[in-house]
């Protein structure tokens, strides 16, 4: 099933061959019947068997599959002379495997005509069907099959061959290099920033609004609602949101405003409690922290939204902050917040939801801006330094895209190679 498009094409072709051979059979049968009328000595069975065994597949090779977890051997061969040409009688290849060159050989796979390779692999689990162990000798042969199950021909036997798992995926070298460059860039800029390099960052309206919004809440004597979204602690957007929550909570504690953080995921709740608690301690007001500032509601999307809607309509928060992963509920929350007259600041990396936040909220952080927000709010040189590194990485990618396009239009061959470095499949 490596390539099912080919498979369907192949199966169509298979059908065609099947129909053709059927026709051939009928024709030969009828001619033999008419021949029989002329000459009784010729039997129909003979003339069916008159179809010769096909030419075998040749140049068989078997080797350990590259860049994998082991338990996998790739077999390659050259098509039988009767596959798509010659007698055109081959309909499939059967891959046979044995632990000894003398057999017995067992079938481990069947591929349609026209195929020149097969990967014989098994799961890691010892109890799975077809399991075979690494570092054991195996022998293979390939049988070219015809419509008649008894009529096939074997290739020569190859082996011994062993499978083994690799400790490095050589196909991922470009990724490794890119990640290393990124890491080094980050480290360099963090060091430079620590040494006092002046780092400019362009203004982000959504971030500047946060301070103002907390002040506004204090003046109005109304709470601030912070929604972490539906992500789990295993989403980077949620981790970014924790950082923003930390900054917001610290300011909230300083201004002595009320804060409400309803949660969707229990782990997120626990982490958020920790974040808010530390922020209150940092702000010098540990006594103001209560565990019910950050509370769990339910792990069901719309029940959660229903409850948050209720909070918005009943508590009328001065400011609603939505940061993290959001799905369909984005617009429900944002429209309810707008109806309640709250100032709304949103940020998410869920691309389909960005337009809704953008339309219904006062400020929206678009995609990457969410991840940059913590650096903006903290203004710590280390974080600003890593933002700079991020920009350099962006510049490198942008330059690669432009160079790649130039290459592919001027030197197509080299351009394709260049392009392939970026098209990694892990």
């Amino acid at each position: 099933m490596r390539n099912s498009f080919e498979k369907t094409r192949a199966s169509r072709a298979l059908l065609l061959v099947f129909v053709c051979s059927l026709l051939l059979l009928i024709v030969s049968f009828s001619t033999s019947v008419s021949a029989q009328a002329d000459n009784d000595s010729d039997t129909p069975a003979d003339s069916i068997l008159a179809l010769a065994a096909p030419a075998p597949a040749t140049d068989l090779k078997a080797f350990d599959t590259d860049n994998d977890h082991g338990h996998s051997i790739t077999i390659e061969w050259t098509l039988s002379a009767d596959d798509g040409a010659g007698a055109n009688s081959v309909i499939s290849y059967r891959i046979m495997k044995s632990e000894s060159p003398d057999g017995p050989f067992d079938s481990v796979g069947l591929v349609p005509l026209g195929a020149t390779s097969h990967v014989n692999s098994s799961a890691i689990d010892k109890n799975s069907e077809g399991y075979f162990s690494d570092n054991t000798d195996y022998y293979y042969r390939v049988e070219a099959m015809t419509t008649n199950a008894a009529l096939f021909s074997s290739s020569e036997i190859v082996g011994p061959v062993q499978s083994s798992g690799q400790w490095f995926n050589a196909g991922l070298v470009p990724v490794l290099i890119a990640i290393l460059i990124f890491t080094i860039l980050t480290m360099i800029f963090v060091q430079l920033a620590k040494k006092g390099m002046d780092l400019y960052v362009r203004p982000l309206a959504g971030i500047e609004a946060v301070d103002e919004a907390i002040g506004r809440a204090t003046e109005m004597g109304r709470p601030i609602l912070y929604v972490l979204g539906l992500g789990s602690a295993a989403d980077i957007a949620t981790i970014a949101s924790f950082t923003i929550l930390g900054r917001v909570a610290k300011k909230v504690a300083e201004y002595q405003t009320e804060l409400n953080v309803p949660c969707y995921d229990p782990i997120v709740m626990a982490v958020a409690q920790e974040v808010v608690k530390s922020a209150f301690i940092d702000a010098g007001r540990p006594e103001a922290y209560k565990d019910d500032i950050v509370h769990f509601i339910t792990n069901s999307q719309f029940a959660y939204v229903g409850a948050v809607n209720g909070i918005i309509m009943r508590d009328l928060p001065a400011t609603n902050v939505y940061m993290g992963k959001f799905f369909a509920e984005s617009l429900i929350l944002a429209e309810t917040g707008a109806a309640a007259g709250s100032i709304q600041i949103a940020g998410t990396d869920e691309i389909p939801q960005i337009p809704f936040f953008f339309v219904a909220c006062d400020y929206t952080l678009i995609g990457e801006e969410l991840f940059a927000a913590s650096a903006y709010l903290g203004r710590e040189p280390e974080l600003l330094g890593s933002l700079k590194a991020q920009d350099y990485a962006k510049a490198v990618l942008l330059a690669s895209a432009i160079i790649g396009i130039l290459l592919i239009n001027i030197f197509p061959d080299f351009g394709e190679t260049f392009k392939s470095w970026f098209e990694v499949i892990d």
Partner: protein
Amino acid sequence: MEMISIWIAAILTLGIFSFLYKDNPLYKACEALFVGVSAAYWAIVFYFDNIYKKFYEGAVTAEEPDYFLWIGAILGLLFLTRLVPKIGWVSRWPMALIVGATAGLWMVGYFVSNAMNQIGNTISNIIARDELTGAIAWGETFGTMVILVGVVSGLVYFFFSKEHKGVFGATAKVGTWFLMVTFGASFGYTVMSRMSLLIGRVDFLLGDWLGILR
């Protein structure tokens, strides 16, 4: 029984819709009910799937118990130390494990799928040719050029550490145009699916409940 159930469902449906007029006791009751039932439902499913099937059957009653699962359980217990203020800081260890492991897990994966592959897709022949005649297909060529301009200017918009002025600023501005067009289009595209949701409920109220389907 069926009758009562459908009536309940219909009342709950109307209760939620009543929120559109204003917050009211019926909505509040629906909301409270919804929170309770859904939290319980999820807890039950989670119990049977994970606590029981995964952990109990895997690490306790299995013929070859998977002792590594016990490490998970110990980490879980550490997590519960939050409830005891004095040693609560220990609960940060499992948190650190989750955050660290997921950061590492996503880091390379996202880099490959979001950054490298997308750049790879952007690298293509600008001049599109008709497959049969080999003549230049102007429409498609224009399209690939617009895509290129959009990707470049969009990315330029996301630069944080360079002031948006001069040529750079102008490019970023073009980027925002592209963003606006995209946002508008996605919004417009979504209207239909939102209407289908309403149709679904109307179907229920008029068809199943009132039974006056066309």
